[in-house]
C-alpha cells in the first residue's frame, strides 16, 4: 500500500483496529480457547487425576509408547528419503523431474483415509501382497508396520519440500569444489551438504514429527482398533471419549497438545536460525558481486 504513510487518519485507524481485533478474536476462539479447555478438562481431577489417567491405564500407556515408537521411525525413513530426493531434484535435470516433484505432494493432496485404504488394498489379506505376507506370517496392516507405513505416507512431503528450495539456493558450487579437491561422495555429504542444510532439515524433521504424532485418518484405517496393541495416542483419545471417560481422554489429548507446544518452540528457534542463515548467505553473495536473487527468493523460510 503506497499511501499507508499519509493515511493515518481516523477511519483507517478504526479499520486496522477492527482487523486486529478480528484476528485476535479468531485466533482466540479457534485456537486458544479450545486448547485451554482441553487442558482445563484434563486437569479437572487435579494433577494426580491427570497422572492416573495418563500413566496408570495400561492401554493408554501403550498408546503413548506406540506413538513414540511409530513417529520416529516414520520420520527417520522420511529424513533419509527426503535428503536423497531433494539432492536428486536440486542437483540434476532429467526428464520427468517436475513430474517427480509433483508426486512428492501427492500425500498432501490425497485424503489420509484414502491413503490408509490404499495400504489395505496392497497389504490386506485380499490385497496384492496379502497371500505372500500371510505365508511369511508377516503382519503389516492392523499391526505396527502398517502404522509406520501410513504415518510415513502422510508425512512424506514435509522433509523433502523443506530441503529442495534450500539446496537450490545454495547451489552446487561448494560441492563441486570439494569433489575437484578429491573429496569422496560421503565426505562431500557429511562435510559440505549436510552442514549447509542442517537447519532446514531439522525444521522438516520437527514438522514431520508433529504431523506423525497427530496423524489420525490414515492410521485409523490400518490400525484395527485393538486396545493395548494398535491404538496410537490420537486413536486412544477418541476411544476414551467414546467410552464416556472424558477427563481421561482429555488428559491424553493434553499430552498430545503438550508435545505440539514443544514442537512449536523448537520450530520457532529453528526458524530463527534459518533466517539468520539466509541473511548470511545473502551477505556473502552480495559481497562477491554475483547475482543469485532469483534463487535466494526461493530460500525464504
Amino acid at each position, binding site marked *: 500500500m503506497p499511501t499507508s504513510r499519509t493515511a493515518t487518519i481516523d477511519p483507517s485507524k478504526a479499520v486496522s483496529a477492527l482487523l486486529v481485533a478480528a484476528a485476535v478474536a479468531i485466533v482466540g476462539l479457534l485456537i486458544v480457547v479450545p486448547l485451554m479447555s482441553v487442558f482445563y478438562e484434563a486437569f479437572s481431577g487435579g494433577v494426580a487425576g491427570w497422572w492416573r489417567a495418563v500413566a496408570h491405564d495400561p492401554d493408554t500407556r501403550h498408546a503413548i509408547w506406540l506413538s513414540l515408537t511409530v513417529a520416529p521411525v516414520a520420520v527417520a525413513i522420511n529424513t533419509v528419503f527426503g535428503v536423497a530426493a531433494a539432492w536428486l531434484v536440486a542437483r540434476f535435470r532429467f526428464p520427468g523431474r517436475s513430474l517427480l516433484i509433483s508426486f512428492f505432494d501427492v500425500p498432501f493432496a490425497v485424503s489420509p483415509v484414502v491413503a490408509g485404504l490404499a495400504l489395505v488394498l496392497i497389504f490386506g489379506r485380499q490385497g496384492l501382497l496379502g497371500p505372500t505376507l500371510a505365508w511369511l506370517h508377516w503382519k503389516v496392516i492392523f499391526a505396527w508396520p502398517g502404522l509406520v507405513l501410513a504415518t510415513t505416507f502422510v508425512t512424506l512431503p514435509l522433509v523433502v519440500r523443506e530441503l529442495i528450495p534450500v539446496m537450490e539456493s545454495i547451489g552446487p558450487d561448494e560441492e563441486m569444489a570439494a569433489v575437484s579437491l578429491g573429496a569422496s561422495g560421503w565426505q562431500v555429504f557429511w562435510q559440505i551438504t549436510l552442514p549447509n542444510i542442517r537447519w532446514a532439515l531439522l525444521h522438516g524433521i520437527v514438522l514431520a514429527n508433529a504431523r506423525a504424532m497427530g496423524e489420525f485418518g490414515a492410521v485409523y484405517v490400518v490400525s484395527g482398533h485393538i486396545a493395548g496393541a494398535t491404538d496410537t495416542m490420537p486413536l486412544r483419545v477418541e476411544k476414551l471419549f*467414546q467410552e464416556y471417560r472424558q477427563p481421561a481422554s482429555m488428559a491424553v489429548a493434553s499430552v498430545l497438545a503438550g508435545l505440539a507446544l514443544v514442537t512449536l518452540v523448537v520450530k520457532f528457534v529453528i526458524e530463527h536460525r534459518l533466517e539468520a542463515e539466509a541473511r548470511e548467505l545473502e551477505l556473502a553473495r552480495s559481497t562477491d558481486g554475483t547475482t543469485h536473487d532469483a534463487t535466494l527468493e526461493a530460500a525464504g523460510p
Partner: protein
Amino acid sequence: MAPRLNRWLIAAIVVFGAAVGRVTQAADAGPVELLNVSYDPTRELYRDINDAFAKHYEQEHGRKVAIKQSHAASGSQARAVIDGLDADVVTLAVWPDVEAVAKSGLLRGDWQRRYDNDSVPYHSVVVFVVRKGNPKGIKDWADLVKGDVSIITPNPKTSGNGKYSFLAAWGSALAAGGSEDDAKTFVTEVYRRTPVLDTGARAATATFSQKGIGDVHLTFENEAHLEVDEAGGELEIIYPTRSIRVDPPVAVVDENVDRKATRHVAEAYLGFLYTSEGRAIIAKHHYRPWGENPPPPAAGETWPAIETFDIGKVGGWEVAMKKFFGEGGVFDAIYQPAGR
C-alpha cells in the same frame, strides 16, 4: 571379498527375517492371546466378560488367557477382519456382518448353528432416549414425526445400530397395521428429521448427549442405559409399545484360530456367554441374556416388558439388506443429506 560378503549378509538377513517371522508364532509360552473384534457398544460388557472368563479358564484348564478387544462400527469391523485383522472371535452387531466374514472364506458355512439360539447369546431392543422430563412428549413411534421433533440415529449403511433403528421404525409402522407405503412415508419422515448421520453408535450417542443435538435418540436398550447413567439425570429412557429385537451374533473365526492354534480357548470364550456367570454379566450391562428365566440387570429389578418383532417382520436379513440398504435401495431413495 567385500561385495561378496555383503551379498551373503543381505541374503542371510532376509532368510533370518523370514524365519523369525514364521517361528515367533509357534514359540510363545506366555498367556494365550485372543482377539475379540466387536462393535461399538460392547466395550464395557466384554471388559467384564474378559476378566471373568480369564479367571474361569485358568481355573478349568490351568492356562492364562489375555483377551484383546477391538471396537468400531460393526460394518467396518467386518471389513477389517476380511482384510486381515486377526480376530479369533467376532461378536458383531448384525447377522449380515458376520455372514460377510463367512463369505470371505474365514468362517465355515455352519457358523450360525454352532451355538444356541443361532449363535445369538443375548439380545436387545431399540428404545428411545429423550431429554429430562420428555419435553416433546415422545411416547411411541408415531410421536417421532409430530411437531418439530428432531431425531438422532447413526447411518444405517455403516452402523448396526443405524440398521436396527431404521428397521424398527419400518417394522413398527407395519406392526401398527400400516402398509408398505405407510412404512415408507413414516421412515422418510423420520430421516427428514435427522440432522446428522454419524457412522457408528458411539458417535451418535456423543452427538445426542454431549453435543446436545436432537430431541430423541434411537438406540439399543443397553446403550441407552449407559448413556442415561452417564448424563447424570439429564436424559431418560422411553420404551415404545413395540420394537425390533436386536440379535447380535457371535462366531469363532475358523481360519484364524486354526492358524493361531487358539480354537479351544476361542470356543470356550463364546461358550462362556451361555453360562450362568456369563449371563449374569450380560444382564448387568443391560443386554437381555438368551434362555429361560433371564437374570435381571440388578437384584430386585425386572426387564421392562416390550412387545418385539424380529428381522423376519421386514423380510429377513438377506432381503432387508438389499431392499433397504443396498445401492439404490429404499434408504438411498428417501434420504436427502442436510439442507434438504
